[in-house]
């Protein structure tokens, strides 16, 4: 009790001292980073959990590219299960001249079988549970579609050849899918209206679904009964399978963000350790005095512990508030790329942050306090009497335990933890060695410079270890920020540069065979280069070299995905400009022998299929077989229609075919597209420009969210800098006084100190620029296959911001020492 009141009294005074503020800032930053990430992932996790049971809007979903046969419905009824019909496909929706690509979702009576649909009577109006599905002849649009078309409830939309008034705004659908939505906004309609749109026909990209729900055991029995009977074209999806994927996606996002928070946490830990050490050092004299006056070790350590705990408490409260604010801002930015509203966050992240703050303080501040407890009372007589340093094993052990505990909390995967810990230790070691090297090199320059620079550089070199830690801590935060800003825009830019200025910007899909000439003519009449059209036949791979495609194993998981999905096959007589043969040969002109097929390079690698392999497909109930004759490299950036599998001419002639094509339409010619879609309502036009724009927007928003987390990293780097300056502040104060006694003006003293920070900032900036450039080169060449272009701006900005930020923070941290009175030199300690 006595210790508590003493601690409270002195803490108020101590709060004005530098190291207590740094300690507080470090705890606050760690807590803020943890809670911001914690709140965000908690909310996403909750959204996933809430929707897990209704993510299919049913218990089971039978899905197919063809209409679901009536027999399945009858069978479900025999098991006493409820059913509902659904169909969805992409199509362009018009409101007057405005149009938007959207996903049409046609639903039948009874939808949804699980969960509810919520609607509002106007955009951003109060939402309510929908009583059923859209009445025949009306549609419900989601907010994104309304906004994109500038539509209001009551407006009439053109869908294919039909016109429907918007009856409501859809705010929530159970099966709108969790996580990041596809680009296209949704339009909900009644299945009875489907035929009138004229959009359903051969080759249209419709996914049909039969929703099934009922008592748990009835659903299980039904699923068990139909499983062996299912044809290849029909897929059965259960709620568990779907929610598992959603959970996995949320889990990955959570781990990534947690890892970024861990970096801030580790830097904060360094700052805490540094400032706690000084906290203890500064208390040695008063502690020795109190001890000589008869205070017990318990009282001494009680006071310090209470003070540290109070600092922790303040840090937790302030950190939680900052974390909450940052999280709110981030989820506001992310609002339109995360579908569905996020439930409010729980208190779990706060508990986690409190625990982490305690662990950090215990692991990184406690060793210094234990040392304080052993202060010899002799120190009142002999100033150089210091307590024995705490054993290194104790310090290292406590710190390591704290870090491991923290990492385990946020990562929760022992194997990953080993990698992350190993990685962090290795990277820090490399950076630290680089930092020391830089510091040593900078130190060598000092014989050739003026007195202020010599003094500053000499200081950097003398405090070599602390200097290197500062360079690394600050350089790390800067590296990541450079990556997220400059390197990201660089990569986007160099990708854009590889694109042809005159590359197509419109895709036409779903053109019927008898429409091809008319479509070409629409553009020719207006003097626009008509699209080159390619045929497309939908098929499913059944056999590979005579054995079932399903049972094969592949070198890459992508191979399994490719083989089992619906295939889009094409045929061509001549090799496209954007293709290049890597292996085998393209068929000669006029070839009409047995069917041959050419496979795309990456698919070939993923599946292990190559020249000579024999593939069998099922197309519209019939079988087509072909031998692989060549492996092609495809330049996807050409924006030409390209196919993974291209057949020799004649092989696919007798099957249902639609045509697709791409062309470039300048803004002034866009009315050609309007005429096209009016004349051929089933043709879908995809505007690549606006798709690319949306992709860019999404990337920008996602990086903004990650940047917010990395700002904490940079701030923690600055906290380390402050802590390091604080730990040398007495030396600095004394040296400033001495320089002034020797006749240095205030300007010279300031110049010396700034030279030191400028050198540190240069080293940090160099490290960050080099790190960001190296990572950028790896990312560009390994991940995106783009040529890496050296960007001098990266170095200028890296160096510039390194010097400016370190000098500014260093000035703030050291300004008390710069103005030391020269008379202090007569009272100073020994050098």
């Amino acid at each position, binding site marked *: 009790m006595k210790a508590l009141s003493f601690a409270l009294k002195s803490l108020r005074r101590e709060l004005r001292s530098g190291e207590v503020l740094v300690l507080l800032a470090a705890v606050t930053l760690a807590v803020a980073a943890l809670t911001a990430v914690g709140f965000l992932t908690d909310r996403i996790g909750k959204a996933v959990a809430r929707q897990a049971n209704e993510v299919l809007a049913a218990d089971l979903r039978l899905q197919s590219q063809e209409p679901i046969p009536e027999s399945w419905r009858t069978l479900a009824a025999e098991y006493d299960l409820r059913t509902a019909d659904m169909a969805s496909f992409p199509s362009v929706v018009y409101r007057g001249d405005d149009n938007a690509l959207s996903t049409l979702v046609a639903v039948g009576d009874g939808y949804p079988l699980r969960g509810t649909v919520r609607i509002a009577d106007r955009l951003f109006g109060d939402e309510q549970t929908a009583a059923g599905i859209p009445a025949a002849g009306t549609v419900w649009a989601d907010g994104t579609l309304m906004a994109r078309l500038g539509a209001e409830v009551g407006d009439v939309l053109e869908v294919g050849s039909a016109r429907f008034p918007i009856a409501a705004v859809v705010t929530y659908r159970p099966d709108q899918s969790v996580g990041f939505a596809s680009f296209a906004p949704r339009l909900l309609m009644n299945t009875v209206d489907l035929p009138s749109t004229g959009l359903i026909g051969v080759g249209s990209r419709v996914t049909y679904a039969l929703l099934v729900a009922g008592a748990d055991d009835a659903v299980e029995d039904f699923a068990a009964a139909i499983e062996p009977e299912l044809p290849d074209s029909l897929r059965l999806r259960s709620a568990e399978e779907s929610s598992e994927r959603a959970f996995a996606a949320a889990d990955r996002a959570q781990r990534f963000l947690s890892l970024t928070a861990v970096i801030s946490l580790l830097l904060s830990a360094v700052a805490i350790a540094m400032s706690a050490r000084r906290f203890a050092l500064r208390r040695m004299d008063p502690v020795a005095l109190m001890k000589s006056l008869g205070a017990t070790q318990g009282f001494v350590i009680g006071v310090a512990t209470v003070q540290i705990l109070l600092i922790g408490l303040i840090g937790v409260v302030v950190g939680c508030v900052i974390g909450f604010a940052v999280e709110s801002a981030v989820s506001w930015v992310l609002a339109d790329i995360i579908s569905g509203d996020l439930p409010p966050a729980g208190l779990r992240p706060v508990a986690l942050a409190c625990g982490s703050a305690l662990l950090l303080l215990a692991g990184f501040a406690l060793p210094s306090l234990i040392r304080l407890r052993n202060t010899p009372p002799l120190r009142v007589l002999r100033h150089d009497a210091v307590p024995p340093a705490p054993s290194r094993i104790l310090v290292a052990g406590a710190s390591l335990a704290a870090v491991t505990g923290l990492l385990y909390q946020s990562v929760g995967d022992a194997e990953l933890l080993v990698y992350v810990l190993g990685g962090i230790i290795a990277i820090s070691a490399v950076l630290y060695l680089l930092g020391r090297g830089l510091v040593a090199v900078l130190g060598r320059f000092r014989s050739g410079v003026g007195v202020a620079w010599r003094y500053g550089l000499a200081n950097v070199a*003398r405090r070599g270890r602390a200097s290197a830690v500062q360079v690394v801590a600050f350089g790390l935060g800067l590296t990541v920020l450079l990556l997220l800003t400059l390197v990201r825009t660089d990569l986007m830019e160099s990708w854009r540069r590889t694109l042809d200025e005159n590359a197509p910007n419109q895709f036409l899909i779903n053109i019927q065979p008898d429409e091809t000439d008319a479509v070409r003519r629409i553009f020719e009449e207006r003097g626009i280069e008509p699209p080159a059209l390619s045929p497309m036949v939908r098929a499913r791979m059944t056999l590979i070299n005579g054995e079932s495609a399903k049972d094969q194993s592949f070198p890459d998981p992508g191979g399994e995905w490719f083989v089992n999905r619906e295939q889009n096959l094409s045929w061509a007589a001549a090799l496209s400009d954007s293709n290049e043969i890597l292996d085998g040969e393209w068929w000669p002109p006029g070839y009409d022998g047995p069917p041959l097929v050419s496979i795309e390079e990456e698919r070939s690698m993923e599946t292990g299929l190559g020249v000579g392999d024999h593939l069998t497909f099922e197309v519209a109930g019939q079988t087509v077989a072909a031998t692989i004759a060549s492996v092609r490299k495809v330049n996807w950036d050409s924006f030409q229609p390209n196919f993974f599998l291209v057949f020799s001419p004649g092989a696919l002639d007798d099957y249902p075919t639609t045509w697709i094509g791409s062309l470039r339409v300048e803004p002034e010619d866009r009315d050609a597209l309007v005429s096209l879609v009016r004349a051929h309502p089933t043709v879908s036009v995809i505007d690549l420009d606006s798709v690319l724009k949306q992709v860019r927007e999404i990337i920008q928003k996602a990086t903004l969210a990650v940047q917010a987390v990395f700002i904490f990293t940079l701030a923690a780097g600055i906290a380390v800098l402050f802590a390091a300056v604080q730990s040398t502040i007495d030396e600095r104060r004394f040296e400033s006084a001495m*320089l002034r*006694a*020797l*006749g240095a003006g205030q300007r010279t003293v300031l110049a010396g100190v700034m030279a030191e920070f400028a050198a540190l900032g240069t080293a940090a900036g160099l490290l960050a620029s080099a790190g960001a450039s190296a990572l950028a080169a790896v990312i560009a060449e390994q991940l995106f296959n783009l040529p890496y272009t050296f960007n001098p701006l990266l170095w200028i900005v890296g160096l510039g911001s390194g010097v400016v930020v370190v000098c500014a923070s260093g000035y703030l941290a050291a300004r008390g020492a710069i103005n030391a009175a020269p*008379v202090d*030199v007569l009272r100073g300690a020994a050098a």
Partner: protein
Amino acid sequence: MTILSDVSFAVDGGDSVAIVGPSGAGKSTLLALLAGLDLPSTGSVTLNGHDLNTLDEDGRARVRAQSVGFVFQSFHLVPSLNALENVMLPLELAGMKDARDAALRITDEVGLAERRSHYPAQLSGGEKQRVAIARAFATRPAVLFADEPTGNLDARTGEKIMTLMFDLNRDSATTLVLVTHDSQLAARCDRVLTLDAGKLVADEAAAA
């Protein structure tokens, strides 16, 4: 609180003066005032023709850079600079162009030619004080202030250091103001000022 009152004296150029007195007599405060490290609340100090009261801090620093040298009890070398660089420091602060040559010369004179590139932490107490003396005399100051220069040294080393200091003082005609407890040391000066409780109680020519 009044630390010094009614203290008035003048020191001629080239003289050596010892300031003695018991602890708390105000010796260090007087030294701080004489060197312009601090200003008196009343009264004035004139240093080498400059009225220190009329100068701001940077002005007083310029006066020190041009005409004052210091030797401290605890040496007070800059730990991050080596011996030679420590000696160069006041030369550069005074704006001298051939700072390095002058520093090389004077480190020779004090017998530190072999230890120039060593850092303070690598030097013995006597060597540190030699560096401090070299630093003090490097600018050929008009006045040298020494605050208990032998206080942290054993008797033999202290004796050597004092001999060095008085030799340099004589050779360069520098005015020496020495604060000390050591009456033997005080006796080697031309004049001894005795302080007690903030007052100047005696001003006499040294016995020897």
